[in-house]
């Protein structure tokens, strides 16, 4: 018999706690496969966020540190400065990265910190029960914007890739999605590129992955994928926002 598919050894055997249809698990898989394919798993240190991915350290089969809410880029900075030969990445949600941790992400980018950031944008605070995030779409109802996010007083989505791409010291910034197979393959390529940048000491890399939250969006897993396509893509255009090697 021929093995056609295997769980990546970049993941542990611990059963994931994510809700059915949540794409956090898929993103974990892509990151794990990337680390194995680049042959850096053994020298990788993951930094887990506070958010639904708080247990990421149980799933990634590498050393890890659990950061305080929003502070993963600072923690990663501490690790990387001590061991520049380690491959250090943060895995952060949109509340973690784009709200409480905005200073840390902007300044890690500003320093050109040679780390990789996996930014999982599901337009909501998943872990705490579906509150409004800075990335929530205008009109999107959440438990703290029950009538839908209002541009007046609650503003409009913070576009992290667009913002960080203006920072001179960044090396690679891309937004991808995993709502269908072609997009998923594209996401994998972007992750590979981002980690490759770090391996080659090129500086700060970030991949924003549009992700689902069926539980707090109140949608079925299939409808959630459709919702990404129909509602998130227009607000969050996919693409490479910065690549110092000139690729797109």
């Amino acid at each position, binding site marked *: 018999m021929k093995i056609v598919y295997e769980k990546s050894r970049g993941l542990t055997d611990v059963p994931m706690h994510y809700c059915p249809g949540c794409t956090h698990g898929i993103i974990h898989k892509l990151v794990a496969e990337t680390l194995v394919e680049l042959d850096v798993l053994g020298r990788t240190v993951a930094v887990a966020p506070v958010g639904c991915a708080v247990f990421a350290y149980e799933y990634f089969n590498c*050393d*890890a540190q659990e*950061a305080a809410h929003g502070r993963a880029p600072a923690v990663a*900075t501490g690790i990387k400065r001590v061991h520049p030969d380690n491959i250090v990445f943060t895995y952060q949600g949109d509340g973690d990265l784009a709200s409480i941790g905005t200073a840390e992400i902007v300044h890690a980018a500003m320093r050109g910190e040679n780390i990789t950031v996996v930014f999982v944008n599901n337009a909501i605070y998943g872990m705490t029960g579906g509150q409004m995030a800075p990335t929530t779409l205008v009109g999107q109802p959440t438990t703290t914007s029950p009538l839908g996010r209002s541009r007046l007083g609650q503003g409009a989505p913070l576009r992290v890739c667009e913002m960080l791409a203006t920072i001179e010291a960044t090396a690679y910034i891309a937004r991808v999605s995993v709502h269908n197979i072609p997009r998923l393959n594209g996401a994998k390529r972007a992750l590979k590129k981002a980690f490759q940048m770090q391996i080659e000491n090129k500086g700060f890399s970030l991949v924003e992955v549009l992700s689902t939250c069926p539980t707090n969006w109140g949608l079925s897993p299939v409808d959630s994928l459709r919702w990404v396509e129909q509602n998130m893509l227009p607000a969050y255009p996919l693409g490479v926002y910065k690549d110092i090697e000139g690729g797109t």
Partner: protein
Amino acid sequence: MARKLMKGNEAIAAAAINAGCRYFFGYPITPQNEIPEYMSRELPKVGGAYVQAESEVAAINMVYGAAGAGARVLTSSSSPGISLMQEGISYIAGAELPCVLVNIMRAGPGLGGVQPAQADYFQATKGGGHGDYRVLVLAPANLQEAVDLTQLAFDLADKYRNPVMVLADGMIGQLMEPVEFSPYRPAAGLPPKDWATTGTVHSGGRQRVINSLYLYPDQLENHVRAIFRKYAEMERTEVRYELYNCDQADVVIVAYGTTSRIARSAIEKCRRLGLRVGLLRPITLYPFPLAAFDLVVERTKAFLVVEMSMGQMLDDVKIAVAGRRPISFYGRTGGIVPTSEEIVKQVQELLGGRGA
């Protein structure tokens, strides 16, 4: 090694490097700026790294990452900056990471002022951040002691896998005194840092995780109890204090850091006035030298607590004396340093004006 005239902040920074500290993360604030300035200049020369963080919040989380990666790491700040670090300090204690923190206290509350104060005693010794934890706190009264305690702080941090704070004030930070650096060797028997996240290639594939999350209450209780066994051990073995002139003292002054220096000159003035006054100087503020009070309480008539605050260590003195003798308090705050004359006057009032 020759004695060297140094400023307090620089002496502390030099001591940290002498003790093998190679990483510093911090954010500028008066009156401790000479520490990051010294580190930014000297760390690259010894193969280390200085990072100017975007805030004290970021700085303490960089410390967390570096400590978790196994390094000897320092941050320093002054009162408002230390307030910002409290969440991170709680995480560091919870994740059982070693690191050294320096607080060169200034006057508060709020933005307060930049003059010396001792009003962060509660914050330093009673937790500061959330949850059940303690920080081991060392309070130097002169620059040689600041050097020695800073070096000791790194050993204690590694020994207990807990943050250790050097708590001084703007006076100590800005003062110049001769100091001597002896060749430093880490304390014997420090545990290996086999928990550090250096990549599983260095651990035979065994995953290391730095973490303070325990969602099951029984697990968290066990974890906290284990941490508190370390604190019990500190309370048994790490208490440090100095008794000066206490043998015949009618009044024992209790003071630490800068105020203990002033108390010492007040004691000399009292001697000339025929007043018998001693000094009990806590060097570790946590663990507090409770048992030291038992050594002097029988012979003394009263205690006088002197602080540059409205009375914070006072609470610990009350616990230590436990009602056996009267306790008076003299405090100046807002950045005002008490004079020895003021302290003499307090002693005279206590002793009913005798010997004036």
